[in-house]
Structures are given as C-alpha cells and as structure tokens.
C-alpha cells in the first residue's frame, strides 16, 4: 500500500508543553482518513504541520512522496486542498468574488472553479455576500475553495462543526463522492459518529499521542467486547464467575470482561454446565465504535 501522507516521530512543543508527541501518521492513497480525538488533543496542530503552516519541533512529514517543509510547500500546496479551523471568506465580498481570489492565487481556470462550486452545491448562492451566508454555506464555500485546485489530498479540520444533521450528512456524502473520484481525504472530528460511516482508515489521538491507527475492523479487534451469557440460574453463575472474570449481573444476563479467546469461552460454558446450570445463550456484546473510542481515549489505552 502506498501512503500519500507519512510522518515519522512528528512532534510539536510550545515551550515545555508537548502538544503533538511522536506521531507516525500513515494515510493510504485513496482512503478517507478519519482523524479523531477530543477537543484539544492536537488534531489542528498536526494538520497545520502537515501543511507546513507551523514547523515541527521534531520529526518529518512526507506528502505525495516528497518531504514537506518551507522550501517545498509552495509547490506541494498546489495539490493539497485544506480547510483549517474556521472557514475562510471575506465577509464584505460575494461568494463569487471570494472564489475569484482563490482562482487568481492558484492560477485556476473557470471550469475548475465551476466544478468546485457545483460539487458543494453552492452555484445558486455565489452572488450573495459571505456576510449573509449561514454557517453551513460558509463551510461549503470553504470546501469549494479547497477543492477548486483539484487536489490529490484534501485536509478538512472539523468540517461538520456547527452543522445541522442534514448539513453533516451532506458533507459525508460529499466526502464519499470525492473518495470515489480518487481524492484522498483526511477529516478530523471530535465526534466519532460523524466519520464513523465514511472513514475507511481511522487515527485516534489523545493528548497529542496516537493511540490507534488502522481500519475499522482493526479497531474492533483491538478491543475485545464483553461476553454475555444467558442461563437458567444467573445469580449463581454470577457468584461463581465473579472472582475469575469479574462477572456482573445485568437483569438476567451475566456480563464477563476480558474473555478474549474461543478456548476461554468454551471453558466458562463447561464450568457452568458442570455445576448444573443450563446455558441457553452465549454472545459477544454489541460494541459501538463510540464505546471503543471512549474506552481508548479515557484509558489512554493500547
């Protein structure tokens, strides 16, 4: 697999405070990379380093196979679209005038601008001043500015921040379409649900450290879900398994944590049956990405 973004030991410290700590980012080409982490975990700082807007204290970044730094950024930025922090846009100018500024800056042709504007479905709003735009419209204009250069890589920092559910869905849909068109998208969020369904690869950041990076499937397998057992005498089963597996009783279901292999599962069932308890249900807890995420970020795990 080839990576469009690769960083090694990427670190940023302000004074003595390390904001981003030894990141080894791997973004596969053509993927939608969901960059997750609570507010203040260093997502924006990392993205700014990828764009060489701020200089890393340590480590290196390679984008599109080339080292990204002050001397190469000018050339590389032509193929990277980005939207960092709040959406840009001069409030006193119309959407069209704002787009023309970007067009001139990057030497784009009208077709590219039209395409970008149509992609974010803003072609009906370009005559209005940005001051009159809703937050969602500003956000979409910002994405159009990033898209107009027809980037190979698109870096979006919390693009769904402050949008309503319909707006969020629209951005998701847009990301999917872009990925289908061959654009690699890196999108950050502090809400898992927003990137859950779109991202093919996930990177999870907590307090400046990468606590997980891989596919959705990898993430699930990294954290074993609890084992749930339904039996004829749940009370007795719970007290039997309390010491070895920390069993808890939920209604009539016994919940066991840390039973991570098929052999161990079979052993538990055998034990119950040997005590004359009838087992009629053994299953894994239905695990949401949300709970995995919370577990990882809270415990600082992995």
């Amino acid at each position: 697999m080839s990576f469009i973004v690769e960083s090694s030991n990427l670190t940023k410290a302000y004074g003595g405070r390390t904001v981003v700590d030894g990141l080894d980012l791997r973004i596969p080409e053509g993927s939608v990379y969901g960059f997750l982490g609570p507010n203040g975990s260093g997502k924006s700082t990392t993205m700014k380093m990828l764009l060489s807007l701020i200089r890393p204290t340590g480590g290196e970044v390679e984008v599109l196979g080339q080292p990204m730094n002050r001397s190469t950024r000018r050339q590389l930025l032509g193929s990277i679209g980005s939207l960092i922090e709040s959406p840009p846009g001069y409030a006193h100018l119309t959407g069209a005038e704002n787009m023309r500024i970007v067009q001139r800056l990057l030497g784009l042709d009208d077709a590219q601008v039209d395409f970008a504007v149509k992609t974010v479905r803003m072609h009906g709003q370009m005559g209005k001043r940005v001051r009159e735009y809703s937050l969602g419209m500003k956000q979409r204009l910002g994405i159009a500015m990033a898209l107009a250069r027809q980037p190979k890589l698109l870096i979006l920092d919390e693009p769904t921040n402050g949008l309503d559910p319909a707006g969020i869905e629209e951005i998701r849909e847009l990301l999917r379409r872009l990925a289908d068109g061959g654009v690699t998208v890196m999108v950050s969020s502090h809400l898992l649900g927003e990137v859950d369904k779109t991202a093919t690869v996930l990177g999870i950041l907590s307090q400046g450290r990468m606590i997980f990076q891989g596919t959705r499937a990898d993430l699930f397998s990294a954290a074993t879900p609890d084992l749930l057992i339904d039996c004829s005498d749940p009370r007795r089963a719970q007290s039997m398994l309390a010491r070895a597996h920390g069993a808890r009783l939920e209604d009539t279901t016994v919940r066991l944590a840390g039973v991570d292999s098929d052999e161990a599962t079979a052993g538990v069932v055998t034990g119950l049956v040997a005590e004359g308890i009838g087992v009629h249900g053994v299953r894994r807890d239905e695990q949401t990405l949300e709970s995995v995420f919370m577990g990882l970020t809270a415990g600082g795990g992995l």
Partner: protein
Amino acid sequence: MSAIVVNEFARMRHLHVVLLVAVLFAVVTGIGLYAAVFNPDFDRTSASSWNTLLMGMGSGFTLAAPLLLAVVASRLVDAEHQGGGWLMSATSGVTPGGLCRAKLLALGLLVAGATVLVSAAFAAVGLAVGIDAPWPAGRWLGLTACLLVVSLALLALHVVLAARVENQLVGIGLGLLGAVVALISTAVPTWIAHLTPWGYYALSAAAGYVDGQLAGFAPSYLNIGGLSAVAAAIFALFTRSFDRQEV
C-alpha cells in the same frame, strides 16, 4: 506576484478603499488650493504664486494624509483578520509577509495615482489662472516625488502595524497622532522633524517663508531618500519575519 496584487484590488471592493483614496485626493486638493489661493502672496504676475501653490500642496498632504492613510491600510489589512485570510493564503502558498507586500504595492499604486493627480491639478490651476512666471518643473516634480515617498513610508508603517496588532484602535490612534505631529513638524526646527516619519512632509517643502519672505527652495532630497531607505529596510525586515511566523 501580479496575481497576488490583483487579488488585493479584488479585496478592496465594498471596503470603499478606492473611495477613501479619492477623498484623500479631494481633501488634499481642497485644503491646498484654499490655502494657496487665499494666500496674500498669490499674485498672478510673480513667481511667488507658484510658491504658494507648492506650499498649499504640501500643507494639504500634511493635514489629510496621516489619518487617511492609516484608515486605508487598516481597513484592507483588517479584512484578513476578519475573514481568516492569513490562513487561507498560507494554505495556498502565499505567506503573511507576501500578503503584506502585495497590500503595500496595491495601496501604493492607488496613492501614487492620487498624488500625481493632485500635482497635476495644482499645476493646471496655476496655468489656468495664467501665472506669468515659468512653471518650476524641477521643484514641482521634486515635491511630488517627496510627498509620495513619505506617504508610501507611512503606508508601509500602517500595513505592518495593522498586520501585527489586530486592534484597529492602535493604527487609527497613531494616524491621528501622526496628523498632529505632521502639523507641528512644519513649525519646529528641522532636526525635530527628522525624528518621526510624519515630520518628513515638512522636509518635502519646496517653498516657504524665510524671514517673512516667501521663497522657493529645493526639498531635502537626501533626507527623504534616507527615510525611504530606512522605511524599506524596516518593512522588509518585518514582512520577512511574518513569513517565518507560524499561523
């Protein structure tokens, strides 16, 4: 670079920057002509009439330019603070310093145009009323160039200041103070006028009263050349440091 400068003109739309520069032109012309024509030494038959016009032009800039230049620079730079423009430009490969240089160039072109128009308007008035003495071309062009250089130096100061300090109060307040300083500098010993950029409007003078007599003299070209060198160096230094600054 040209695209970046053209973008600056695009950003000026709806900010009334061009209108403000036009107002600068009108006010300078108004004040200057009023001061010149109502001067008791304005007399069509003598060379002193040209001198009153030269003086009027100088006092027009002295009074109007410091504050209006501050307003113009402040508005254009503030648009970047408001619209997230520094970051947007940075992600497109234009550094904050580059943006400041483009702004100075764009505003400088407008101010240069206004200055040349003022100069032409004054000359036209002189010729229209039929001043007998020959037009003092050398001093006239010299004064025009000197006033322009001082105005550009002030623009550079205000662009850098507005980029550094988001609170517009600082730039506008300095502009107001500058207007006062510029005015005082016309009356104080020249060494004091050298101390502030606004004082150089007074040093540009190509005519004035020497011992109660109106006389023509050459502007202090050397000193104004010095101002332009210092201003250029400081502007380059600051914009260079903006380039390295992290956003």
